[in-house]
């Protein structure tokens, strides 16, 4: 396995990051303290390098119709300027990736797959494009992605945006994107700015060429210093997304699972007029009730005690295995353990008490609503 480095690797090294492998990339796990980074995002702001994620442009007269066929959602219904969370499934209805697509024009979309799946998704999109009048262009290797997340994100970003465009940033809606002027190395460049995020906080993502990424990273850190901005690594990213009840591909989502059990039924558009890859299988799964009225479904668990459940631990009811944890840790914001788990539907109702086998000792957990954490808007 080759070690991939993002254009910001040197910045992370300088900041004293400890690194971890993520989808073949050496990414910052943390810079100082993962708890401090987590709290910074909740209370002020955190800066994330997401350059390991993929960027695939889909353009051409059939762009909308093609994505309707390639993905589970109805991308043709997305207004220009807006984004949509969707899934790319295989013919069996298994989840190949969860991804965000930005509609950048009538005939132009930017698809952003997860780091570990970027090459697979790009290849699959190219393969599924046969017969459609579209170009699929994977620009992942030349594109960097920097995210500013947290309540102070907007104010920090505005320090690099010309005054005349401030309203454009302020009025940008959640799950929307726009081209905006951002000052990099003393010149204003038109860059793609999105307002999505994976932390449960307000936040922005900036897409830009690799060569400009270190300068923008440094400028944001410098300008954000008095607003409490610090760089945040993947450890904080994981604890933040878990509190926000968001699934992580590889933990909650996989080729062997399906959207209905993962609580992503609403993301699947069986009502689309067009066929799409996985449609027949997904319709049959929905009909069967697996993951909704039978089998196991994804739920949130809140620990009664202080010991945290972790991935792959068994969920028990009266000593019998009724599920498995997919992600879990002590919640830094809430102060108690939280976990996501697939649990037999008969034990998945809110308020149900179950146990998790914590290395040989059954500890009580309660099935609770997701997300665990919701910001005050």
């Amino acid at each position, binding site marked *: 396995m080759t070690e991939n480095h993002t254009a910001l690797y040197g910045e992370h090294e300088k900041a004293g990051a400890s690194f971890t492998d993520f989808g073949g990339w050496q990414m910052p796990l943390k810079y100082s303290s993962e708890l401090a980074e987590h709290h910074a995002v909740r209370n002020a702001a955190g800066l994330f390098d997401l350059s390991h994620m993929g960027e695939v442009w889909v353009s051409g007269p059939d762009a909308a119709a093609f994505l309707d066929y390639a993905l589970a959602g109805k991308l043709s219904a997305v207004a220009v300027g807006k984004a949509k969370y969707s899934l790319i499934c295989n013919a069996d209805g298994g989840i190949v990736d969860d991804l965000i697509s930005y509609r950048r024009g009538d005939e132009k979309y930017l698809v952003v797959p997860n780091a570990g799946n970027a090459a697979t998704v790009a290849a699959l999109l190219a393969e599924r494009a046969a017969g459609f009048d579209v170009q699929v262009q994977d620009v992942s290797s030349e594109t960097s992605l920097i995210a500013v997340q947290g309540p102070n994100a907007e104010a920090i970003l505005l320090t690099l945006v010309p005054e005349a465009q401030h309203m454009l940033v302020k009025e940008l809606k959640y799950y929307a994107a726009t081209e905006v002027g951002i000052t990099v190395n003393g010149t204003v460049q038109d860059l793609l700015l999105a307002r999505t995020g994976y932390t449960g906080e307000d936040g922005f993502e900036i897409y830009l060429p690799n060569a400009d990424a270190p300068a923008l990273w440094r400028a944001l850190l410098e300008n954000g210093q008095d607003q409490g901005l610090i760089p945040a690594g993947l450890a904080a990213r994981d604890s933040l997304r878990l509190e926000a009840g968001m699934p992580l591909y590889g933990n909650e989502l996989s080729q062997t699972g399906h959207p209905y059990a993962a609580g992503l039924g609403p993301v699947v558009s069986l009502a689309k007029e067009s066929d799409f890859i996985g449609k027949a299988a997904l319709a049959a799964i929905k009909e069967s009730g697996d993951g909704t009225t039978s089998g196991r479904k994804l739920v949130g668990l809140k620990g009664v005690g*202080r010991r945290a459940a*972790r991935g792959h631990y068994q969920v028990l009811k009266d000593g019998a295995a009724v599920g498995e944890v997919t992600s879990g840790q002590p919640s830094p914001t809430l102060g108690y353990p939280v976990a996501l788990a697939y649990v037999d539907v008969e034990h998945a109702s809110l308020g149900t008490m179950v146990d998790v086998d914590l290395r040989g000792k059954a500890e009580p957990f309660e099935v609770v609503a997701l997300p665990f954490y919701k910001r005050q808007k």
Partner: protein
Amino acid sequence: MSKVAPELQYSAEHEWISLDGSGPSTIGVSAVAADALGDIVYVDLPEVGATVTAGETCGEIESTKSVSDLYSPVTGEVTEVNAAAAGDPAIINSDPYGAGWLFKVAVDSEGPLLTASEYAAANGGEL
């Protein structure tokens, strides 16, 4: 580089012990282990009066990222536990050899122990 306190002895499982011969010996985890765990948020310690056995687990230490078992480097009776560390485990990160000590044992026998330099050499710590 994580610090290795030169005056202490260590187990292969990353516990340190201060063997002063007279009273009970103080036990904690090395900075190497604390740094590897990340921010420690919970620690489960043996109870006062319990007997711990060298090389066997007697509790656990949990960080946001992971959890690891706490092993006793010696056999004997637990005479005291550090309630302050249990209440605010962050001090195990900030001062693992001082305020972040974990428990004290009236030692009956010792398990295999390493000197500070042996431990540092094996685990990449800094004396």
